[in-house]
């Protein structure tokens, strides 16, 4: 149970079904038992950026921004925030793993959903990117959002409670 402004850090070794749990929380998979109750939209960040590799980063992000009804000003703010403003004309396929992850972060921030599900958000990010993600999560919680992070890496999230999945194995 998470109230607005709270966060969970789902931890555990590889293969313990962190990703499955995230997909169940997002409503993409059905749980075998139990149920998920949530109020508000949910944004998911996972291994796949969902950005078309062939088009420029700006256009790929604009597709989702149009769907989410994001204004021009916020779009700039989002890409600026993750440090990708200079790369908007570059096709997504030329971006590095870390840059794609940053782009996905920008996409998720633009979605303006109150619930964030981050599945291994730190993969491929450099030290500055990790710090950026931690700040984004902290800001989101401070603004009354809910965050669930699944990561096998340690993250500096002072407000988050840790959920060790290994403790729940029957």
């Amino acid at each position, binding site marked *: 149970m998470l109230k607005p402004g709270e966060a969970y850090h789902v931890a555990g070794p590889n293969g313990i079904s962190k990703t499955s749990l995230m997909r169940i929380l*997002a*409503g*993409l*998979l*059905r749980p075998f038992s139990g149920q998920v109750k949530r109020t508000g*939209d*949910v*944004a*998911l960040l*996972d*291994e*796949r*950026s*969902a*950005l*078309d*590799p*062939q*088009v420029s980063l700006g256009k790929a992000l604009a*597709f*989702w921004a149009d*769907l*989410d009804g994001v204004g021009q000003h916020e779009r700039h703010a989002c890409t600026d925030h993750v440090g990708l403003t200079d790369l908007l004309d570059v096709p997504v396929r030329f971006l590095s793993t870390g840059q794609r992850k940053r782009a996905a972060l920008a996409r998720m921030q633009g*979605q303006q*959903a109150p619930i964030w599900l981050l599945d291994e958000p730190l993969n491929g990010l450099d030290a500055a990117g990790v710090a950026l993600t931690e700040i984004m999560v902290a800001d989101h919680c401070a603004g009354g959002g809910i965050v669930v992070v699944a990561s096998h890496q340690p993250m500096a999230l002072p407000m988050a409670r840790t959920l060790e999945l290994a403790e729940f194995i029957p």
Partner: protein
Amino acid sequence: MRRDLALLMPGGKRGGSILPLLFFLAVAMLYPFAVGPDAQLLARTGGGVIWVAALLAAILPLDRLVAPDLEQGVFDQLALRGISEELALAVRMAAHWFSFAPLLLLATILAAALLSLDGETLRKVLLGLLAGTPGLAAIGVMIAALTAGLRGGVALSGLLLIPLAVPILIFGAGSLSRPDGAGIALAAAISLVLVAIAPFAGGAAIRAAREG
């Protein structure tokens, strides 16, 4: 829709190339060489050849239709925004049709000249293709969604296509040998049924691929 079109149109970003069209014209060009230059024979069989070539041209881009979006998680992200797989596939189907059918109809006029079809036959082929191509697009999207999550999906596409496309082909190409337009009307009816069920069948397939 705009994104889908930009990706799929000839010269589009997803290599939605001009290849199906060239393939279609190549068949029309090579067929006379294969069966000999007998104008009567060509005129009699030409309509059917155009139909088969159109069918094959419609399935050439299948592996790029749905699979890349499934791999990149686009359908997942759409689902989170409350856009169902059915809607996404209906849009995809329309974009797929626009990407091959209008140009195919134009190319048919060229192919008819190569196969020495008379004006009446050409009119019937064009009307028939207009009625049948939405069905072909629907079959394409359905098969693409069904095979998107599978290994060797392309090989399976070919097998799946045969039973699904036979009705359209029977009535569409069959209309050429009948004086009335019944065949075209039936091809159009089958097209409508396929267009109606394809988004639902494809949507179910994508959700099933997610569980797998």
